[in-house]
């Protein structure tokens, strides 16, 4: 099967080269049969890469440890679902995963794009094929997933314990889907530039793709935070690590695009900016992959250091030069069709929103690259960690939260004073009341105060928008409130789905603010001993060490330490944290012992217990106890965000378009009731 897999990679490479050369060189111009062949080649590419993927999966599932990749990431006693996820657990497999998913998206783009955009499709096929050729050549020349060992080990090394988590089964594919799907909007943008068809056609063609990409990135990032929280054991979910930053960068620029594209659709403005954002987003997705795989920047999450990263660097430079040169040459064709009417307009608010989003992206990128720059300029290595990012980005994030509330309140084109007064009164009052209430409870931390007050402001904005819409429907159509709400959202999915996304974002901010008040305590306890920890809400939690039990599970030896938890004297239950020594099927240790945290979660705070280790081989245990406020709301905010995204992209909706009834040719008769009585 590996021979078949490698053969398929070579076949895909040849098809990809042929397709991209024909499509991008202009050879196919005026030759319909060539154009048709080009638009069919993404399906052939997908076929080849799907067979190659099945060949790797077959190797993984059949424990063919002669394949280096299979031996490096799986073992005989690894649960089946982790064997399946082993496909994307390592460098080589994840490259194949990337390639097969991109080929699937490329194929779907050809099949699902409405025929009115057919003129763009050959170029789209060319661009997706060119990107695929790059990924396939990296596999064939630097990281071949089908590479064989000179011997066959009796068992594999197994999967890194930290990857043996359901979050890691789902999080990487989601993030990859987000990264990969960005290629399709990029391909349409390049196609529009190449074909000089720079009307709003390409924008309409990519609308769903940009939303899909944004949605997958959002899900991937949220799942990544969840995995970091439940698996890494440091009690947080975001550490401004370069790899985390790399996932945030394209999300920020894609979010900016989703806002600014509305201005292009409504007013025919910002054409250059939108093209730049799409190109930038694609390049940032490649940049993220470069960071993850090159080892050029130290990261907790990086793949092993390898020369693969430099392939990505070269590709990044080539793709960037090509795309921006193309954009430059088409500059005169991208004149705006209208101009901004007023500083106080929704267009202007969107522009400032774009500035904030792109500014934050720049700030994150700058912080991520600054150590390299510093070393190049001063010859001194420095570290840029969370204190730097928090200092620079928290104020920018708060500005963005304010704009989340302000944008929807301002009318398109030009807002009047009366309009502003009517729109802003309720949200501003809500923000002030929130602020006053928090100050009254004794909260004095500036950033959390601002975050919560601004979240109140943005929430009031959304509630006001929904209330106005429902009231209008009730008055105009005589509907009851639930029906009016349902129809309001169903008929304006993009708008009200967008508001739901805003709600998700502001829930995130509230949850992030909560983490400013987390409590941590380390304690060493003998069985039966207790320790008290006071939560930010004023509760006293008592943790009593119940003992450590040891047992063997499928692919690991477990030491489970259990504590009983009481809140203000009331028993909440038992929490168990584990030390796991993973072993292969010969019971040989495969990795250093890992830690599994124990979490008891509710709406107010998470009780987070970490078994740090035992003292001198006895049951005396060292624990870390964390009380993390509002963490549940991060996951809930993620859910709302995804729901909003799905609402926005759900097919249909929009006002009903009445098609004129066909009129019989030759004459037109108007029926009246005259003479019928």
């Amino acid at each position, binding site marked *: 099967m590996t021979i078949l897999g490698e053969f398929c990679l070579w076949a895909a490479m040849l098809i990809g080269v042929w397709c991209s050369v024909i499509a991008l060189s202009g050879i196919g111009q005026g030759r319909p049969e060539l154009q048709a062949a080009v638009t069919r080649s993404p399906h052939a590419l997908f076929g080849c890469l799907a067979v190659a993927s099945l060949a790797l999966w077959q190797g993984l599932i059949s424990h063919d440890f002669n394949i280096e990749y299979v031996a490096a990431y799986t073992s005989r006693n690894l649960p089946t679902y982790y064997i399946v996820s082993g496909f994307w657990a390592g460098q080589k497999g994840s490259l194949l995963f990337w390639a097969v998913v991109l080929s699937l998206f490329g194929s779907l783009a050809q099949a699902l794009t409405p025929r009115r955009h057919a003129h763009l499709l050959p170029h789209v096929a060319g661009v997706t094929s060119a990107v695929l050729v790059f990924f396939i050549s990296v596999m064939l020349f630097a990281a071949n997933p089908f590479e064989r060992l000179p011997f066959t080990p009796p068992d594999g090394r197994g999967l890194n314990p930290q990857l043996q988590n359901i979050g890691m089964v789902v999080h990487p594919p989601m993030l990859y889907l987000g990264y990969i799907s960005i290629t399709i909007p990029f391909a349409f943008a390049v196609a529009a530039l190449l074909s000089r068809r720079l009307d709003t056609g390409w924008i309409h063609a990519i609308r769903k793709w940009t939303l899909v990409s944004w949605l997958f990135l959002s899900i991937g990032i949220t799942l990544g935070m969840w995995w970091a929280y439940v698996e*890494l*054991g*440091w*009690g947080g979910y975001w550490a401004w690590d370069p790899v985390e930053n790399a996932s945030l960068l394209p999300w920020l620029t894609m979010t900016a695009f989703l806002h600014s594209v509305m201005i292009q659709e409504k007013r025919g403005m910002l054409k250059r900016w939108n093209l730049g954002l799409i190109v930038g987003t694609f390049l940032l997705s490649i940049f993220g992959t470069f960071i993850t795989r090159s080892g050029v920047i130290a*990261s*907790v999450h990086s793949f092993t250091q390898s020369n693969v990263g430099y392939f990505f660097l070269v590709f990044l430079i080539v793709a960037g030069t090509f795309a921006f040169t193309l954009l430059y040459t088409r500059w005169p064709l991208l004149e705006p069709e209208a*101009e*901004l009417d007023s*500083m106080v307009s929704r267009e202007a608010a969107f*522009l400032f929103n774009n*500035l*904030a989003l792109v*500014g934050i992206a*720049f700030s994150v990128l700058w912080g991520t690259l*600054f150590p390299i720059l*510093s070393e190049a*300029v*001063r010859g001194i290595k*420095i*570290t*840029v*960690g*969370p*204190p*730097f990012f928090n200092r*620079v980005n928290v104020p*920018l994030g708060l500005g963005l939260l304010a704009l989340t509330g302000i944008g929807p*309140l301002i*009318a398109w084109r030009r807002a009047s004073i009366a*309009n502003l007064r009517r*729109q802003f009164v309720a949200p501003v009052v809500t923000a002030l009341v929130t602020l006053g209430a928090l100050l009254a409870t004794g909260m004095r931390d500036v950033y959390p105060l601002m975050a919560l007050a601004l979240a109140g402001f943005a929430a009031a904005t959304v509630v006001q928008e929904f209330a*106005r*819409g429902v009231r209008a429907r009730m008055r*105009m159509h005589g509907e009851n409130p639930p029906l009016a709400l349902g129809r309001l959202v169903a008929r304006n999915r993009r708008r009200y789905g967008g508001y739901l996304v805003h709600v998700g974002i502001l829930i995130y901010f509230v949850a992030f603010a909560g983490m400013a008040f987390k409590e*941590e305590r*380390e304690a*060493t306890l*003998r*069985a039966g*001993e207790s320790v008290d920890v006071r939560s930010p809400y004023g509760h006293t939690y008592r943790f009593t060490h119940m*003992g*450590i039990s040891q047992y063997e599970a499928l692919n690991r*030896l*477990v*030491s489970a330490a259990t504590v009983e938890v009481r809140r203000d004297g009331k028993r909440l239950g038992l929490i168990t944290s584990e*030390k796991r*020594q993973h072993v292969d099927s010969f019971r040989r240790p495969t990795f250093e*012992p890992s*830690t599994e945290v124990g979490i008891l979660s509710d709406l107010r705070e998470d009780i987070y217990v*970490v078994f*740090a*280790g*035992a*003292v*001198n*081989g006895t*049951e*005396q245990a*060292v624990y*870390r106890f964390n009380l993390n406020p509002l963490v549940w709301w991060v996951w809930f905010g993620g859910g709302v965000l995804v729901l909003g995204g799905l609402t926005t992209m759900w097919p249909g909706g929009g006002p009903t378009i009445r098609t004129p009834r066909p009129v019989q040719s030759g004459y037109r008769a108007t029926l009246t009731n005259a003479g019928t009585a």
Partner: protein
Amino acid sequence: MTGRSTRVGEHVQERRQLVRWALAGMIAPSLSHLAAQDPMAGGGPQGRLRDPTITGRSRAPTVPGDNDQWIKSVEQKLKCTCGCNLDIFTCRTTDFTCTYSPELHQEVVALGQEGKTAQQILDAFVAKYGEKTLMAPKPVGFNLWGYLLPGVAITLGAVLLAVVIGRRARRQSLALVAADASDSVGQQPAAAESVDATPEELDHLRRALLEVED
């Protein structure tokens, strides 16, 4: 015949002996393991674990300095030297295989006990391990670029945006005034006349638009 039966008997004896040895070989380690195990295993505060090796590195009991907020805040500004990219506090309370962060923690505690201020401890670490030991670079010299450039870029962008929007809005206003002037000289706007609706309908539409399309 007798000789043969004697040999068979010897064989049986040998086999039985082998089985006895084998059983003894299997049971003896278990018994010796039991003998070595604490009689209170898993049952009390002094209970020894059946297999201490699988719980990772043995831990030292917690001391008050481990929970000191001041020590924690200093450690969160200093990077662990094990290559994990985490600060000392996070590394020592997360990566329990790391041998560097507990030692660095002891260094911080010792410096604190000497009466050094937070800044003095940071300076001592920079002197010993270099500038990369700080989780965020000092905002001086070239590092100021790191801190200020994003803010400066965004501020400049905002000013530029405001100027451009303001200029274009002014141009639009002037164009509208000119259009109004030419309308007043010439004829009534055609658009107003062409709308086929009663004033009530127009008013209804305007209110609905105000409600929904603000």
